[in-house]
């Protein structure tokens, strides 16, 4: 090899490396505070088109006139929005040499969850060999998705490469005026995921399952947009059963789903953000707006969530059932242990004829946890023959926790059929003793009861995640009974 050739190769490789990691404008982070300048700078750093900057600015101006909501059944100290820095360049995690350097407590949890050794290394930020199964699997699948015309990329990439799709659908389900946290997100969202499934395509794999370990750190204001074009199907999985820590206490994400005629979207979440310590210190505040529009006829959107983490969960994934015969589903398990608080539920808005919705909510409260179900079922005048079935169950472990149910019904059509069932039960010492007497220890006894209680919801999760979620539930409730 000649000297020039070597030089050329070096240049090429260096070039790729250089441009792969550095943004056009040199800025590590923006100063604290939120105003128009900040939003302009943020948009400039990200190299966004004009329409997006304008949209962000409209959101900001709207947000500045809004008040933080206080109707939820949660308590937290006031948040100073001017004390937050709204952009920082993704930092590379410090690389560790081996698992020996990782917090043993964290490793123990990975072990219990049954996460593979290689994956443990990725999650904990340990350097991994170049040949790593999941990475090559991910690459193979990306090629396959491309072939089928499926777009699956970060939100920033979508803005650069598919601005028309972003422009058409961004804010079409959750407008920037929607609520305090959605408006804030609209003004300052950092990144997130984007997926588009073309007409008639059935996405052959769970999106994000294979990518979860490689996902970039998207920060505290995440934005996700998924569009299922006519006759398509996609199952999307968000989150991870492995415990997630973040320096940012406030998280305000927005997820928008659009299902056109005969399309189906299945969106599953396993949320395990840091819940704070046993005394309730620290922990993530998770204020999320998630909504799907069943825009086309016969379309269907299912939300399945397993919420075990965060100090505060404020979240109501809903469906707007616009298309005739469209279906909305919500399956939820929410656990609050120690000092965790959750106010979560759904909104089912029936607009089209013969629309159907199902709500299955299972709250579990332990320790001093407070768990509220809040759900709205609304049937408009024109929504002939709308049907809803809601079941909201609460399970209490111990006697210092609480469960609350706030169902709201707005029925404007006489042909609507609405059913609501609710139960509250308690894991008692007598049940535990009964199981102990059959040779089952207390931890497994609680696991048995809890898994029996949530099996309807877990059945909706993709198989491998259902298995992890089952273990996660047991871990989340460890030590909750004397």
């Amino acid at each position: 090899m000649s000297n020039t050739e070597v030089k050329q190769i070096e240049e090429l490789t260096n070039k790729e490396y250089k441009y792969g990691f550095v943004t056009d404008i040199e800025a590590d982070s923006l100063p604290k505070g939120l105003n128009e300048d900040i939003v302009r700078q943020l948009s400039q750093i990200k190299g966004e088109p004009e329409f997006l900057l304008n949209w962000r600015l409209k959101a900001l101006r709207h947000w500045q006139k809004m008040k933080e909501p206080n109707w939820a059944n949660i308590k937290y100290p006031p948040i100073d929005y001017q004390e937050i820095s709204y952009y920082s360049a993704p930092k590379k995690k410090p690389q560790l040499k081996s698992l020996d350097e990782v917090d043993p407590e964290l490793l123990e949890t990975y072990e219990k969850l049954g996460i593979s050794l290689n994956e443990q290394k990725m999650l904990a930020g340990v350097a991994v060999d170049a040949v790593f199964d999941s990475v090559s699997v991910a690459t193979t699948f990306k090629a396959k998705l491309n072939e089928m015309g499926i777009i699956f990329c970060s939100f920033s990439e979508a803005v650069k490469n598919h601005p028309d799709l972003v422009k058409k659908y961004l804010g079409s389900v959750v407008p920037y005026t929607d609520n305090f946290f959605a408006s804030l997100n609209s003004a300052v969202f950092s990144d997130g995921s984007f997926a588009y499934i073309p007409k008639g395509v059935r996405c052959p794999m769970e999106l994000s399952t294979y990518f979860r370990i490689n996902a970039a750190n998207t920060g505290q204001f995440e934005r996700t947009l998924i569009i299922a074009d006519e006759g398509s199907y996609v199952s999307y999985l968000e989150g991870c059963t492995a415990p997630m820590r973040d320096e940012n206490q406030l998280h305000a994400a927005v997820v928008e789903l659009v299902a056109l005629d005969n399309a189906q979207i299945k969106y599953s979440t396993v949320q395990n953000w840091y819940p704070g310590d046993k005394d309730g210190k620290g922990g993530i505040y998770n204020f999320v707006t998630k909504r799907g529009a069943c825009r086309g006829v016969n379309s269907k959107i299912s939300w399945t969530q397993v919420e075990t983490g965060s100090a505060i969960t404020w979240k109501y994934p809903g469906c707007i059932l616009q298309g005739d015969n469209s279906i909305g589903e919500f399956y939820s398990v929410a656990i609050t242990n120690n000092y965790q608080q959750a106010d979560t539920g759904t909104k089912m808005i029936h607009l089209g004829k013969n629309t159907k919705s199902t709500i299955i909510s299972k709250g579990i409260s332990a320790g001093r946890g407070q768990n509220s179900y809040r759900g709205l079922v609304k049937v408009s005048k024109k929504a002939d023959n709308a049907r809803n079935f809601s079941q909201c169950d609460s399970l209490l472990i111990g006697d210092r926790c609480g469960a609350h149910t706030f169902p709201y019904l707005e029925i404007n059509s006489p042909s609507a059929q609405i059913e609501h069932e609710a139960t509250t039960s308690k894991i008692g010492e007598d049940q535990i003793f009964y199981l102990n007497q059959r040779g089952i220890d207390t931890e497994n006894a609680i696991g048995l009861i809890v898994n029996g209680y949530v099996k309807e919801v877990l059945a909706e999760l993709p198989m491998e995640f259902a298995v992890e979620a089952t273990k996660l539930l047991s871990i989340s409730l460890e030590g909750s009974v004397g």
Partner: protein
Amino acid sequence: MLEVINLHANVEGNEILKGINLKVNAGEIHAIMGPNGSGKSTFAQVLAGKEEYEVTDGEVIYEGKNLLDLSAEDRAREGLFLAFQYPIEIPGVSNTNLLKTALNEIRKYRGEEELDTMEFLSLIKNKMKLVELEESFLKRSVNEGFSGGEKKRNEIFQMAVLNPKLAILDETDSGLDIDALKIVANGVNQLKTKNNATIVVTHYQRLLNYIIPDFVHVLHKGKIVKSGGKELAYELEEKGYEWLKNGSEVLAD
């Protein structure tokens, strides 16, 4: 198999058991009788390891081990089984699931291999016949919506599957009509071998017509005041507990 020596126990600060002595050998059936509030159920629960009951004095040796040092689950894994007087409902947990978990926990403890689903199913289907339960019963949640008779049959069914060394039946006859009583008693008798033992706790003599005890003990005010053969049960039926209560005053003095 079991030796209870001077056992004292408190419930919420009140002394309920005031020095019980009892010896049970393999192959024996013991009946413990006594009026309401004499401490029969407390005795059964203390042996099973209920934490709320505080043992203040005495010893219990079970198969050479100090029983009181073991957790409730380890006692069960060592082969002690309590058929509850009031079996509790556990919604969402099927009978199959409970039994499979329990059986495998016990096998694991004993260093035996866990049963796979097929082996397990054939075992339980076999045992169900013993107490005449329908197969649809397996899918139902533990004791949820069961009639009194079904609950008691379920206890004996669990006992059949878990195959304990020492079974304690706490008022298993209460709330049973005569047909159900026969089914339950028949199940217990069929499970009897020369290697296991049974303690039948009961208020009435009725059950003892079907499960014939080798020994009968009368518990009164937390003490065994009289022991004898099965004829003692007939005597009690005839004369009532008053006869012994008076006697016990004499004994206590």
